[in-house]
């Protein structure tokens, strides 16, 4: 019984932490656009907390490079369980158009385990909402 309530609460209240891991701002502002009136993800209880210790869903946009991979790892470790990682945009998935550049390590999944991949360049807000919803499936288990 309690578990059922807890699961429901978890899916109803995904607090997101957004980390721009070297994206071009495209996906970034689309993530922010999700919070604004036209998409308003607060309908689903999503709020941007900006503090890893409070977050449940980790939205990562952009390529990983040698400097920010440590930050990424660090942030990931600070998020308490249960957590969901959503990689956003072509850059977050594989490195996108930049994956052959010298300072690019590749997609987010090279550093931390990723649960949901949201393709697009930039990913549309609709796709980002879909992605978070898909990620919440993991919490139901």
């Amino acid at each position, binding site marked *: 019984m309690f578990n059922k309530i807890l699961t429901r609460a978890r899916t109803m209240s995904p607090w997101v932490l957004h980390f721009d891991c070297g994206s071009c701002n495209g996906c970034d502002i689309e993530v922010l656009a999700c919070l604004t009136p036209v998409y308003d993800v607060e309908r689903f209880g999503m709020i941007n907390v900006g503090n890893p210790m409070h977050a449940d869903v980790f939205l990562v946009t952009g390529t990983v490079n040698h400097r920010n991979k440590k930050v990424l790892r660090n942030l990931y470790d600070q998020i308490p369980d249960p957590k969901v990682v959503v990689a956003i945009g*072509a850059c977050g998935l*594989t490195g*996108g158009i930049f994956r052959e550049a010298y300072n690019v390590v590749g997609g987010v999944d090279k550093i931390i385990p990723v649960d*949901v*991949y*949201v393709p*697009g360049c930039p990913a549309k807000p609709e*796709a980002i*909402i879909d992605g978070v919803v*898909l990620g919440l499936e993991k919490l139901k288990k």
Partner: protein
Amino acid sequence: MFEMTPTIMRNFIGKRATRRYPYVVRPAFENARGVIYNDIRSCTFCGVCAAKCPSQCITVDKKAATWSCNPSACVYCGVCAESCLSGSLQQKCDYRKPVQEKEVIFLRGEINNNHNIPMAMKNE
């Protein structure tokens, strides 16, 4: 002070700006740049798309008659579809859905035989 009042009062009384997305889906604009779709039966495996792709996510093997694309590296610029000589490559207006596993689109066709085996192969 409080200069914002008329605006927020208008918001309070007026219609919400929110699109109730998952419940109400707005149709995509007709020339929105979404997923790349290859009609493998008419593909001639000329390789122009692979050469033009700025993200280098398309590989074409003429001998084996295969066409593959890594949609997670695709930047949806639409250059491949524009430059396709046979018109087999098209860009649809729907965006690609999020997935839990990365996939690679791998299509095999035979140039003279109208016969294709589209299949999605998992990456690594």
